[in-house]
């Protein structure tokens, strides 16, 4: 299945992209995707404990399962205002 990964702020710098489409196996979780990304982008490991996730524009947990055409956003703790 296909998912779209979006990255923001410092995570965008670490991954080197702000949006990317990935082809992944069915029944994949957020943590599985992060593990896949860590293989290509080791810098992601250094901030693993500080990551937040959103599935289709809603905050989600790291054990959330993704579905075909989902958008997974990965970002650090927010600092707006």
């Amino acid at each position, binding site marked *: 299945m296909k998912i779209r990964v*979006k990255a*923001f*702020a*410092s995570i*965008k*710098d670490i991954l080197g992209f702000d949006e990317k489409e990935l082809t992944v196996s069915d029944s994949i979780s957020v943590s599985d995707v992060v593990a896949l990304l860590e293989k290509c982008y080791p810098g992601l490991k250094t901030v693993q404990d*500080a990551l937040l996730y*959103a599935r289709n*524009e*809603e*905050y989600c947990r790291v054990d959330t399962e993704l579905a075909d055409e989902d958008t997974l*956003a990965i*970002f*650090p*703790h*927010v*600092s*707006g*205002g």
Partner: protein
Amino acid sequence: MKKVIIQQEAIDVAKYSCQLGSDADGAVVTFTGRARNMSGDKAVEYLVYDIYNGMAINEMQRIVDEAMERWRLGSCLVVHRYGKLAIGETSVFIGVSSPHREESFASSRYIIDEIKHRAPIWKKEYYSDGSRWIEGQR
């Protein structure tokens, strides 16, 4: 009136302020967040805000809905900038109105605190010798 806006252009505080309130409202409270020239002991030259547009609108709308459920408000307007901000420019504007002042003070405080914790927006500070993403409290 209930509205959430994100915009790249400068926030016209006077324009937004005069949209608030009705004859039933005895109080209007506005909060303006501004780009500060110091971060700790480092001089800041300018800021850049990154934003997850759709999710930020949804999350701020949810915060406004929560405030309007919790307090009796006549109007509620939230405007947040993104992109590059010069020092002194307004980064966020919150305006609320209510029959009595307590609701306006409490709700505006609630809204800015929740935005800082939940809205997917990130600030990057630029100094003369580099830059740094600011991460909020966990």
